[in-house]
């Protein structure tokens, strides 16, 4: 099994990691949905959580962000306790989690990303409005600012959510299935936006279901099925053997065939040998 290599000679420092979780366990009732997961997310990169349905991917994400309570475990952001660093994180929930008939325009939704800045009272000034439009521009939705959100397509809704996250000016972007059910152009556009925020120094962390694009989009991966199966750089961990272990041997030949060559074992060397 692969582990994240520790920073040499610096055991105490968690500062090198954008996010580190230790022993995180979440349960519904008396059944663990996520069990004692350790993971460290390197900064300024794109990381992904991969696993079958019901593996606890979204649950892990939510527990990590304190949205749902954890039974045990610790989360640190840039080496600091989570609570003090919460405002450095932008969270993009699954699209289906909100009511899209809500009376709000695209602008209104993106402007919600400025709540930390504005609080209850402060007036939304010209520069705030300009920033909202800028964020919309980055996801290609500027012309839609006045549109009611219910009129948007799935891909456009995802773009609006992305823009709302951008409006937070966060250091870590956490996205739950951002590419589920969006059109190809939106997926390309969103990946481009995510890459640009990483270039600007931010860290991206996604739950993602499409195995075919994992190696193309992400540098680090956590294979999860309630427990941590493996974690580390994509080229080391994203292998057929570990994936079959993650998916309980249920990956079909078709799913495997769609994956990039590197994940498939070559006759001469097994993936496990490659890792070590």
């Amino acid at each position: 099994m692969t582990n994240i290599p520790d920073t040499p000679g610096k055991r105490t420092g968690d500062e090198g990691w954008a996010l580190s979780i230790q022993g995180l366990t979440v349960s519904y009732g008396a059944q663990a949905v996520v069990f004692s997961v350790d993971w460290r997310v390197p900064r300024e990169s794109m990381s992904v959580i991969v696993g079958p349905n019901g593996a606890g991917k979204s649950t892990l994400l939510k527990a990590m962000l304190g949205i749902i309570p954890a039974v045990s475990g610790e989360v640190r952001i840039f080496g600091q306790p989570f609570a003090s660093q919460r405002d450095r994180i932008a969270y993009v929930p699954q699209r289906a989690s909100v009511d899209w008939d809500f009376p709000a325009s695209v602008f209104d939704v993106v402007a919600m990303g400025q709540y930390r800045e504005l609080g209850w009272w402060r007036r939304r000034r010209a520069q705030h409005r300009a920033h909202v439009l800028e964020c919309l521009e980055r996801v290609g939705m500027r012309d839609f600012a006045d549109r009611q959100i219910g009129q948007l397509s799935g891909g456009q809704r995802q773009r609006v959510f992305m823009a709302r996250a951008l409006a937070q000016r966060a250091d870590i972007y956490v996205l739950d299935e951002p590419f589920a059910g969006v059109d190809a152009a939106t997926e390309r556009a969103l990946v481009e936006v995510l890459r640009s925020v990483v270039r600007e120094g931010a860290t991206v962390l996604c739950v993602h279901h499409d195995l075919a694009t994992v190696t193309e989009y992400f540098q680090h991966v956590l294979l999860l099925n309630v427990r941590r199966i493996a974690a580390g750089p994509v080229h080391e961990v994203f292998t057929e053997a570990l994936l079959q272990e993650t998916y309980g041997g249920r990956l079909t030949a078709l799913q495997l065939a769609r994956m990039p060559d590197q994940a498939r074992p070559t006759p001469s060397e097994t993936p496990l040998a490659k890792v070590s």
Partner: protein
Amino acid sequence: MNALFEALLMQAGFNTALVCIGAALLGAAAGGVGTFILLRRRSLASDAAGHATLPGLTAAFIIMAWLTGDGRWMPALMVGAAISAGLGLAAVHALAARTRLPEEAAIGAVLSVFFGAGVVLMTVVQVIGTGGQAGIATYLLGSAAGMLRHEAALIAAMAFATAVAAFLLRRPLTMLCFDEDFAAMNGVAVRWIDLALSALLLAVVVTGLKVVGLVLSVALSIIPPVAARFWTNRVHHMVIVAAAIGATGGYVGAAVSSAAHNLPTGAVIVLTLFTLFIVSLLFAPARGLLAGVWRHQVFRRRVHRRQGLLALARGEAIYDGFTLRVLRSAGWIRRDGVPTQTGRRAAREAARDEALWALHRQRQPGDGAFRYYHRVMPIRAVLPPDVVRDLERQFDLADVAAAREPRRGA
């Protein structure tokens, strides 16, 4: 009739005017708070809160009757009502959160048990037979007519304070209603804001006890926002429209029932609100039924016009009666179905527009603009002029090439 107009025009004396203003303020506060209640999907909880006031109200009455001989002092009744309604809401919340009961079952149970307890206490009031026992019945359905001046002033002040509080909390409330998880991540103290919303709801219900009555108090916080939803697609507008509708309902209800003494105010308010709701449902331009029918008709015409023009362009026969009527009324075909000069030109333009859309789809497969294509809008009306010019240039080049192709082959 005369008395009614006098009341509506605030000519029926200072007391009546004050009552009407108080009721209007109450309606405005209820509409504003109700908007967030509706968006938070807690409308039924306001019904539970209303009915759950009864035991506290009657208990307060009994205690005061014991102590002073008269149980009708409104502030104490309000406090009693607020306490038992608060307990009711807490019970609903606890049942829904701690057990597997769905919230509506919890609401039903709490509502009926509290109301039943209140009714039992009311018979106790009758048994004691203190002065002013009739006064408590007016809290069931509301009675603006017999209201004292200080009561009306208190109601106005409380309604105003509630409205101000709702206004101050509008941002966190909106965040909470739209996306609770996101709100929590962004520093909205979700639990406290939720509690504040419940407190605002309690304030509205308790303030409205004497005006709208506890049985119908739910209407005052539900109907205005529901009606307002037809008029607008943005929260801050919805709050204002709901407040206006609530204020109108409260004002008219108080005025009418103070002119006609035996009409319960709550019932008149509800009927007024319902009228405004029907008007909104039918005539509101944003989401009203007639506007929807109208938009559909416009769209249907556009579809038939486009289909007809494309058929003309391809030289196909048209059989659909509506399509023929549309084309004829536009002057594009003659009575016998033969296209006119302008008809032929329009057909060419339509075919070209289709082709430009197709070309655009080739170049930008996922563009959001295709929503408009599916709404049969001409490409010029949707895409910026420079993009259209570029498309046309490409299209014409392809056209020229295609025209040359066979010649070269020949």
